[in-house]
Every structure is written in structure tokens, then in C-alpha cells.
């Protein structure tokens, strides 16, 4: 499908109707100060030159590092079949056509993706995807405000700090009374959270595992919230859902998360994948597109966009959100990834992540001066206290092609000596040993 909607001849005809002899003449009315003027573009390059140029830029990415960085985005293995499926030309446009039912294959893939997200989270409905985990959480906040007619949101400080910043930015022009509750020993402070609930509270936002890698069963907080008509939003790590108590099991109302771990490569700024799932009761408050399965007039199975009255192209000012698209290609990758691994495969990935992380924690904890925070159970990520600023250690290890983790001082005051270490199934015993030895060499020399 061509996205350039008119031809040179048509443009000519339109200009004629406007009584102008060129595009420049048509734009004359725009003051020069608002126009971009001449563009000083470099000369066109040959294919060979261009490839060399782009290769040089790409080489500036430190993609060769042995990666122990997480913080919401993880270095998981991606089967080659994911690329093969996602790059099929039938799928390889990120845009849903304006008559979506024309693309039955695309809609079927989205429908199956939605089903997988529902099964992974044990929720009743999932949408066709959002931009990323952070924006999905922002949308969940607005959804909770709309569903309850209330104005206060209580946020656990164990939520990814990047997401929290996004939530504040996204909702800056809405009058929301946000209250952040600090974690205690890396875990949700339930007493303090419950104390902050009042009649104006729309929702409590939690994350599992939280930013420190800590696993939590939030069902006690959920029941305290539900007693008062307060919704619970939980941001989750999809791989961990294969082995942990799911949001559906503990009665969460809205689930969001980052789907990058499901077959999408790490990249600065994405494109990533936000997923969102909720209960049947809240489906009409859920933003984004939703694909449904039905039968056509011949009684054959067919896929359609459904409940579109929530969307802005039907009722602009009353729409549930200004989102009117989805990350179809990234959702397709997640769909392919989950299909290839299957239920047992994903469990295996989760178990490997957890076991390797436990081994890494053990190795690091054995180093003099290093303390692994063990007051709460963790999944594939854990917090380490160092005898030196975490940034200093990272600076040295990067030179040895090891990214040992994220410096928590960047996100939390007073945590300059803390390092957040993530381990996926891709890290070998050898690599984990290399990390431990490199850390030991820095600290004990």
C-alpha cells in the first residue's frame, strides 16, 4: 500500500485550483521566521559509502559488552524464527490499515497476542499493545481515574524510576494527587501504603518484581484496596509471570508491563512493547485497540476491531485516551516468541534466569566488602552493596567489556554504593565467574 496519497499531476491540479504556481507560493502566507529555510544537507552517498557510514555509527554502540544490566529491560535470547516471522512482508508494516478488517492475518496475530497476554497474566482482556511499559503504566493511571472518578494515586517507590518519571510527565496537566511510598528493605511498605489510602484514592500502583528485583505477593494490599473501592495497578515483568503468582491470581485490576523481554532486541529508546490487561468489568475504560473474534455472514471465523467507541476516532473528546494505534510489529514478535517457547519453554527461561542470578549472587557475596541484599526473595535481579561508588566499579569494568549492572544512586538518593545486577538465561557460568573475578580484582587490589 502506498502512503504517498497524490501524484505530481494531482498536486499540479490542486495548485491550479488554489491559484498558485508552486508549493512555495502556496506556503507564502507562513512568516519566514516560522519556516525552516534552506536545509544544509550533505551530498547523496552511494550505497557502498552509506553502508560504511552506517557501520561506523553502529560500531559506536557497545553491543559487545557482557551484559548484567536490567532495570526493566533484559538481554534475553531471541530465536531466529522470531526475526523470520516478523520480517515476512505480509506483516512488515507497523501500521494497521485504515480498514483494519481487510488485514485478517494482522488482526488474527494481534488477537492471538492478546490471548497470550491474558494467559500470562491470568486476566480477562488485553489490548492490542501500547508503546512501552512506561506509557502503559501512564495509561493505566488515567484509566483508574476515569473508572473511579477519584483523583489520588498512591505509588510504591519500588516502581521503575523511569516509569515514575514518565507518569509524572504524562499526567502533568491533570490534577492528580500523587503520593509515593518508600520501600522498606527493598519491599513494599504495606502499612504505610494502607495509611495513605483515603476516599479520594483511585488506585495503588505496585510492581512485581520491583525495581530492586524483589518478588512480592501483593494480595494483602489488593484486598485492603478493594474493601474501599480502590483499584490496584500492577506493573510486571512478563518472563517472571511464568513462575510467579500472577496478577489475576491476586485480584489485580489493571496489569501493565514492558514486553521487550519477549523477543524484542535491546535498543536505546525502543521500539519496545507496552502490554496492558484488565478485567471484563473495566474493558470499556481500557485505552487502545482491541481485536475480537467473531463470525462473518457465512458463519466463518473472522477478526474485527471491537469496542471502538472507546477510541478517539469515534468520540474524540470522550475517548479513553489519545492512543489510537498499537505496536503491531513488536506485538507480533512477542506473539512469535511466546508461541515458539510455549508454556514450558517460558517457564524454563524463567527458571534459568532465577538459578543463574542465584549463582551470581552467591559468587558476588563471597567477595570481601560486597554484600548482596537478601532480606527478600528476588527473581533474576538483585541489589549489591559495594565498598566503593557503583559508578566507579562500572567505569573500570566497562573497559573490560563487562557491564556489571545499573548504579542505583542514579535513581535513589543515598544509594551511591549500590549496584543492581540482572542475570538472564544468556549469561553463562563462565561469564558470571568472569564478572565475580573482575569485581574482586577491582576491590581487592
Amino acid at each position, binding site marked *: 500500500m502506498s502512503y504517498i496519497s497524490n501524484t505530481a499531476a494531482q498536486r499540479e491540479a490542486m495548485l491550479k485550483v488554489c491559484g498558485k504556481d508552486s508549493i512555495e507560493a502556496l506556503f507564502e502566507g507562513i512568516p519566514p521566521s516560522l519556516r525552516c529555510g534552506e536545509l544544509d544537507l550533505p551530498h547523496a552517498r552511494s550505497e557502498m559509502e552509506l553502508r560504511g557510514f552506517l557501520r561506523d555509527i553502529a560500531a559506536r554502540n557497545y553491543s559487545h559488552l557482557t551484559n548484567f544490566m536490567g532495570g526493566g529491560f533484559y538481554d534475553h535470547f531471541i530465536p531466529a524464527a522470531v526475526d523470520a516471522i516478523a520480517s515476512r512482508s505480509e506483516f512488515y508494516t507497523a501500521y494497521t490499515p485504515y480498514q483494519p478488517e481487510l488485514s485478517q492475518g494482522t488482526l488474527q496475530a494481534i488477537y492471538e497476542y492478546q490471548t497470550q497476554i491474558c494467559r500470562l497474566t491470568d486476566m480477562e482482556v488485553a489490548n492490542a499493545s501500547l508503546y512501552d511499559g512506561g506509557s502503559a503504566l501512564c495509561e493505566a493511571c488515567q484509566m483508574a481515574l476515569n473508572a473511579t472518578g477519584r483523583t489520588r494515586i498512591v505509588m510504591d517507590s519500588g516502581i521503575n524510576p523511569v516509569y515514575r518519571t514518565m507518569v509524572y510527565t504524562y499526567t502533568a496537566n491533570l490534577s492528580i494527587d500523587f503520593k509515593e511510598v518508600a520501600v522498606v528493605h527493598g519491599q513494599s511498605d504495606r502499612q504505610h501504603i494502607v495509611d495513605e489510602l483515603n476516599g479520594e484514592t483511585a488506585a495503588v500502583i505496585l510492581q512485581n518484581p520491583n525495581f530492586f528485583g524483589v518478588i512480592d505477593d501483593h494480595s494483602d494490599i489488593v484486598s485492603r484496596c478493594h474493601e474501599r473501592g480502590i483499584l490496584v495497578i500492577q506493573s510486571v515483568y512478563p518472563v517472571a509471570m511464568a513462575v510467579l503468582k500472577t496478577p489475576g491470581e491476586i485480584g489485580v485490576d489493571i496489569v501493565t508491563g514492558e514486553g521487550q523481554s519477549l523477543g524484542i532486541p535491546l535498543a536505546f529508546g525502543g521500539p519496545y512493547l507496552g502490554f496492558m490487561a484488565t478485567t471484563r468489568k473495566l474493558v470499556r475504560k481500557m485505552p487502545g485497540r482491541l481485536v475480537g473474534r467473531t463470525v462473518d455472514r457465512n458463519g466463518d471465523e473472522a477478526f474485527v476491531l471491537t469496542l471502538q467507541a472507546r477510541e478517539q476516532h469515534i468520540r474524540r473528546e*470522550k475517548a479513553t485516551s489519545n492512543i489510537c494505534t498499537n505496536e503491531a510489529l513488536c506485538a507480533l514478535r512477542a506473539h512469535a516468541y511466546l508461541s515458539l517457547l510455549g508454556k514450558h519453554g517460558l517457564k524454563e527461561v524463567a527458571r534459568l534466569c532465577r538459578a543463574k542470578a542465584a549463582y551470581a549472587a552467591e559468587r558476588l557475596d563471597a567477595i570481601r566488602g560486597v554484600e548482596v541484599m537478601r532480606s527478600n526473595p528476588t527473581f533474576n535481579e538483585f541489589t549489591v552493596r559495594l565498598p566503593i561508588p557503583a559508578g566507579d566499579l562500572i567505569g573500570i569494568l566497562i573497559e573490560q567489556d563487562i557491564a556489571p549492572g545499573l548504579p542505583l544512586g542514579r535513581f535513589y538518593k543515598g544509594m551511591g554504593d549500590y549496584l543492581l545486577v540482572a542475570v538472564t538465561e544468556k549469561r553463562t557460568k563462565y561469564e558470571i565467574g568472569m564478572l565475580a573475578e573482575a569485581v574482586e580484582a577491582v576491590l581487592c587490589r
Partner: protein
Amino acid sequence: MSIPDNCSYTKTHEWVRIDGDLAVAGITDHAQESLGDITYVELPSSGQRVEQGGELGVIESVKAASDLYAPLSGEVAEANAALADQPELVNESPYERGWLVKLRDVSGDELASLMDAEAYGAFLESEA
């Protein structure tokens, strides 16, 4: 086209009827017919205050999603719970089983400002 004499009407095609202490409201036969098959009705909860001409809820049909407006100011005494599972009642019985809300504390002056059946019939003809 049914326009019962015992109701009062708005230009936005809602009807209202006094029933004891309460005012029962819904959408007219003309409205349900124009909307087509109703698939979902979103109504306010009991205790909520509504203002005449203000938002009462949303009604979705296979053709469109439309806002509902309160024919009178008042407090919502009850919303028709049956519509959650059977929104088609609005099509089948717009003035009886397909009612939307019952309001309390409504004003006679506001009621007097609405059209009677004859005026609403004429209004529909003028719109056609």
C-alpha cells in the same frame, strides 16, 4: 413511532415521566430507532447528582456511541441494572423495560420546560 402522552420530552430525545416521588427517564422510540441495535449503556451510579442537560451516560449501538443527557436535575435513585446484560431492552421497550434511570428531588419548573407529546411529535417532524 410511539410518543406516549404521559411523558415529557427533550430536544435530545430523552423522555421523563413522574412516578410517585421519582422521575423515570429513558430515550425515545425515535432515538432507539435512529441508533439501531443498542449494545451497551453506561449509566451513573445511585446517589450521583445530575444536572438538566448535563451528562447522564453513554449509549452505544452498532452504529454509534452517543452521550445521554439528563432531562431533569436530580439525584440518581436507581439505574436500570437489567441493561448491563440486556441492552436490547432499550430497543424493544424504550418507555417501559428499557428505562435508564430514576431520579429523585426533581423540580416541577424544569419539568414544565420540557415538551409534551404533541410538541415532541411536531419537533420530530420539523427535524425530519
